[in-house]
């Protein structure tokens, strides 16, 4: 049961943090329509995070924003501050492929199977969006380099037993994963920003 909690917390933190990172493109994505689509997907991911946090606690906001930095369980992949579109799309695509494997496995779970299935129905559209960009950019050198660079991080999103499948789907060889449990240097400033409002709220503030 402790393992389950850890797994779900990792999932929720991944969704929160990738939603946060992707929403950094709001207003500055390369095309207006993509800006709307990308922001909407980012919002969905944060919604998934909330739904999973709610399974773990009565106060999702507190769980999401009141933890010290080292208690976050997100994979390093989602923490990275990526400043170009090639890397952003590479991460989006790698994350969606990994997330599908993880969510599909969770759908078999007696407790959270229903929630996982619900999340999966929305992720189906995210996957379509990610695949479409991947098809578009797959021969673009900057995109390929970004995929190669992020690949060890992508492996860290799923459990070791799921990595062979991830490698097969992505079409790359398994390498040493960047595991969750420690954080990248990019995470501290992000944590600072994410938790700032609640940390600076006067005692007794109502939301």
């Amino acid at each position, binding site marked *: 049961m402790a393992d389950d909690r850890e797994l779900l917390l990792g999932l929720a933190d991944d969704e929160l943090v990738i939603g946060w990172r992707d929403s950094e493109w709001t207003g500055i994505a390369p095309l207006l*329509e993509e800006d*709307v689509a990308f922001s*909407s997907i980012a919002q969905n991911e944060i919604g998934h995070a909330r739904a999973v946090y709610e399974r773990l606690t009565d106060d999702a906001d507190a769980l999401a924003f009141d933890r010290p930095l080292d208690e976050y369980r997100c994979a390093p992949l989602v923490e990275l501050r990526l400043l170009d579109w090639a890397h952003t799309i590479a991460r989006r695509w790698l994350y969606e492929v990994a997330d599908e494997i993880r969510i599909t496995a969770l759908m078999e779970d007696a407790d959270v199977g229903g929630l996982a299935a619900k999340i999966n129905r929305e992720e189906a559209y995210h996957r379509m969006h990610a695949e*479409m960009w991947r098809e578009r950019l797959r021969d673009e050198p900057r995109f390929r380099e970004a995929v190669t660079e992020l690949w060890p991080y992508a492996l860290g999103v799923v459990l070791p037993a799921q990595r062979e499948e991830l490698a097969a789907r992505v079409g790359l060889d398994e390498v040493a994963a960047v595991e969750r449990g420690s954080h990248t240097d990019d995470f501290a400033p992000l944590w600072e920003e994410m938790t700032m409002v609640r940390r600076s709220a006067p005692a007794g503030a109502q939301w």
Partner: protein
Amino acid sequence: MIYEVFRRERKGQAFEHAGSMVAPDTEFAEAWAREQYGRRGESVALWLVPRGAIHDVEDWADEFDLKYRRVDGYSIKARLKEARERAAQPMARGEGSTRGR
């Protein structure tokens, strides 16, 4: 490629022109249109039409002033006003519905 987007607000209603978007292919157009015109539940269906598929018709020759054929050949101002007032009653509900971000 430019796509003209038509949306159907509710089942049974006619599709209406909603706007247009530039997209590299139908797949992108669909992904973007879903968000742009549907994410708030404001459409039940969309049509995406490549602008090239549209056949424009915009000029009518009227060299002999056949104005008796046109609506402005008759004075219908009063009758139109009446009809509008009648129409205003049941129409009020669908007006000013969900649009914009």
